[in-house]
């Protein structure tokens, strides 16, 4: 009896076993989805490409089930995953060709024993890069590509190569505590990943520099533990992957995608079904939905970030002042914010847009105003707790001014809950943006934005439902990713709230 409970506990603690379970279930779910979609009920025909995808996913799922069994045996008999099992994960790396992020992510996690956050960053940087390149490659089926296409694609490939090399290097040389000094050079190069929107690459670079310099061991350890917690949270890392993928795509789309396909009317190709030239079909003006959705991601991300950062700054400042000074200041600020809090965000946004007209800037302001009180409340609660701590007393005894105590002592220490809150509300902002655009109250209708595309799609729901389905899936996945990532961040930063 005791043996069994020990085994169960061991399996529970084994990261690989849990990941394996997760991977085969999700791969099987996708296989099922492909199976359902492979038969067109209206025309009684089999969709051949979908069947191929189904077969690939089904085989992958079976292979992962087999790996799961092996891992289980290894963990129960030997206490840890054996080398041979790890070798068996290499073929699984090929699943990236089929776009199976679950299986390929799992494969990367299984092949190396050295699971530092840097290794995860490197592997997901490569995965993101390959996904971006894969999606961008669809432009080759268009009648023409933009002038910068080849150059940009070449650059992306070079970056992918760099990440591939980094995977091997980090697996070999980076430990939990430190990295060799020469890692500074690739670290600095990797910081440029931000220009192609690859967060994973940027984080990898930053992390390597931090570890290679190793000036402050406690800060390195803090950084390491935090990211280890996030990278071990499977859903959080997939959320981060999708956010990075969309971000990277919307950054590089400037040089790879042609904006004309998304905005210029093409009456010879109205409401086409998905094909290689138009991967997601066309809308009622013959505009390519694929390009529109890619450019729509830019708007969604910009509005989402702006309408999160703005209220976080304003609300955070008000909350900090309110929480620090207390008494009358607190009452006045919080009672005034109560007024804002009593109006539902969407209604307030509608009222503001009604007054000032519908455009992008007004939309950002309208969404921001309604979000101020929640940030102020979060900040206030944290600051009230913090201002009783000894280090604040000490700063006061040393003669620091109120402003310097608030902004140098208290605010840096109360950022964690604000960051978590912000991550969890970006999703809401993205939904609100597209909802208001759908009502005709958000982004101007000529700009390709997900809500605007859906608005068109809603009129063709009966005949061409894909126009409404694809942008909706994008919104949902992006918001879901932000929520998963936010949850992971919350668990990593504050284990108590879990």
């Amino acid at each position: 009896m005791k043996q069994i409970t020990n085994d169960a506990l061991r399996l529970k603690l084994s990261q690989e076993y849990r990941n394996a379970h997760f991977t085969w279930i999700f791969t099987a779910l996708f296989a099922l989805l492909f199976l359902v979609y492979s038969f067109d009920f209206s025309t009684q025909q089999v969709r051949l490409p979908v069947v191929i995808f189904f077969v690939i996913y089904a085989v992958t799922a079976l292979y992962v089930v087999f790996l799961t069994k092996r891992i289980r045996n290894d963990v129960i008999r030997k206490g840890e995953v054996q080398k041979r099992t790890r070798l068996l994960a290499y073929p699984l790396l090929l699943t990236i060709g089929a776009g199976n992020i679950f299986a390929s992510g799992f494969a990367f996690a299984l092949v190396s024993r050295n699971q530092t956050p840097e290794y995860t960053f490197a592997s997901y940087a490569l995965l993101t890069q390959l996904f971006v390149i894969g999606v961008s490659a669809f432009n080759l089926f268009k009648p023409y590509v933009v002038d910068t296409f080849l150059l940009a694609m070449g650059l992306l490939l070079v970056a992918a190569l760099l990440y591939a090399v980094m995977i091997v290097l980090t697996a070999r040389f980076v430990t939990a505590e430190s990295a060799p000094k020469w890692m500074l050079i690739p670290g600095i190069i990797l910081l440029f990943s931000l220009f192609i929107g690859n967060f994973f690459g940027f984080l990898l670079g930053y992390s390597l520099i931090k570890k290679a310099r190793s000036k402050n061991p406690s800060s390195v350890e803090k950084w390491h533990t935090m990211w280890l917690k996030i990278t071990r949270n499977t859903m959080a890392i997939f959320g981060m992957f999708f956010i990075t993928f969309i971000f990277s795509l919307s950054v590089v789309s400037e040089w790879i995608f042609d904006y004309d396909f998304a905005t210029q009317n093409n009456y010879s190709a109205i409401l086409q079904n998905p094909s290689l030239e138009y991967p997601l079909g066309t809308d009622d003006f013959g505009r390519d939905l694929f390009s529109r959705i890619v450019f729509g991601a830019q708007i969604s991300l910009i509005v989402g970030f702006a309408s999160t950062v703005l209220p976080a700054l304003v609300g955070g400042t008000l909350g900090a002042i309110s929480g620090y000074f207390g008494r009358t200041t607190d009452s006045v600020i919080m009672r005034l914010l109560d007024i804002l809090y009593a109006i539902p965000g969407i209604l307030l946004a509608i009222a503001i847009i009604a007054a000032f007209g519908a455009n992008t800037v007004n939309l950002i302001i309208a969404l921001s105003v309604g979000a101020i009180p929640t940030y102020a409340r979060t900040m206030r609660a944290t600051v009230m707790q913090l201002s009783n701590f000894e280090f604040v007393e000490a700063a006061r005894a040393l003669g620091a001014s109120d402003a310097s105590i608030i902004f140098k002592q208290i605010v840096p220490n109360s950022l964690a809950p604000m960051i978590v809150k912000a991550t969890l509300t970006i999703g809401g902002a993205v939904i609100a943006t597209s909802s208001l655009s759908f009502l005709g109250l958000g982004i101007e209708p000529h700009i390709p934005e997900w809500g605007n595309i859906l608005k068109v799609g809603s009129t063709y729901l009966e005949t061409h439902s894909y126009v409404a389905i694809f942008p909706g899936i994008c919104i949902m996945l992006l918001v879901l990713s932000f929520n998963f990532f936010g949850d992971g961040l919350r668990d990593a930063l504050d284990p108590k709230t879990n």
Partner: protein
Amino acid sequence: MTIPEFMKSLYLKASIHRKSYWLVIVLSLPLHLISWVLYRVQKPETNYIEKLNQETSLFSEQQRHYWFEDFYRQEKAKDQAFQLHQSEDTLRKTAQRLAVQHEREELRKKLEKQGVVPQTYSRFTGDLIGKPSFFWMTLIFAFLLYSFLAGRSQSFAWFVLGRLVQTLFVIVGVAAFVFTILYISPLDPAQNILGVESTPEQVANFNRIYGLDQPYLVQLWNSLQGLFTFDLGTSFAGKENITASIASKFPVTLIIALFSLLMAIIIALPAGIISALRPNSYWDYTFMIVALIGLSIPSFWQGLLFILGFSIHLQWFPATYSTSNWLSLVLPIAVLGTSIAASIARMTRSSMLEVIHEDYIVTAKAKGLTERQIVSKHALKNAMIPIITVIGLLFGGMLGGAAITEKVFNISGIGSYIVDKQFIPDIPALLGGVVYIAIAISLVNLVIDILYAFYDPRIRSTMKKKG
């Protein structure tokens, strides 16, 4: 204790309480007119100073010297520690001063034990209030003060009163805020209604009819009056009575909101409880991933998908709302309820997880209760508190989110009314719609807060501590 005596004790308590200090002074102004005159005339005899002088002999010379020595030692140690290099003379003087202070303090304590207290003005006023004749005579013009004091002593009534005032303030604030936004709008309703070719006279006439040419404060006052007397006049376009149309559109929105809340609770509570009881199990993961998907799905898109699936393909439910067919309410309720259900399920899980590790649950387990009994009788009751708060807050978001769902399903509720009116912008109609929704939300939250204070013993005890 008679009423005047009770009032006296309340007054004395309130006059030293920092929080309500100014309020007490303002409220008791009429009272002070009399009591100040009496104080001046009577010059109440006080034997405090005399007693003070008498009692000085209570302390022996030795005692005094001991105190002095004590302070001197302290001062000296302080001087050395901080390296102040004060002269011997200064040290002695400081020690002497402190010793005298200490002696006075000791004396005051001793006298207080004997019932001798310094006579101050506020004490004099308190004594006056304690006299029945004075109390009943001043009842009329110090009524506000007395009712304030009485209200304060009843912590629950005080709490309710405070929340009522706060809600009133928020409601007026919301009305003023929304009006101000619409007032400073650069858009011109007159131009939009009358068309581009309207003459300046026509525009001026339009503005005069609707009072748009009046100064800000007058317009604001008129709007507030209209809101609270339920007479907002007629809308700019269509000239229908705004209050009547809002009143006719509110019920649909409320019905949908209430039913979706009910649906959400029925689905979400069990899901959350199961997830919390079996954390990290398959059920837990499934429920929580589904809940997160429910949170992440845009409601208008979900509405479109439902119409596509259930109305167009399966033809189970009609795609648009009609008053005669209750089946047409099913899809909007499901759509509106999804995100609420997701939030409630997540909140239930985390709240239950917190409660389930408390000591009293362990006790219940040790008593031999079954899991079902523990959950239903012990855990759920305490876990419900944060859940109900969240439900109250979600109700607000739901009434706001109704605007989008109503547009998708073509329901003529308050939400779609607001959206329709914003294009002009029809100021009184918009104002009415938004403010009445905000009022509904504030009232719901007020009721929840008060119920809490009534049912939760912990909140009641903290209220008493404060009062």
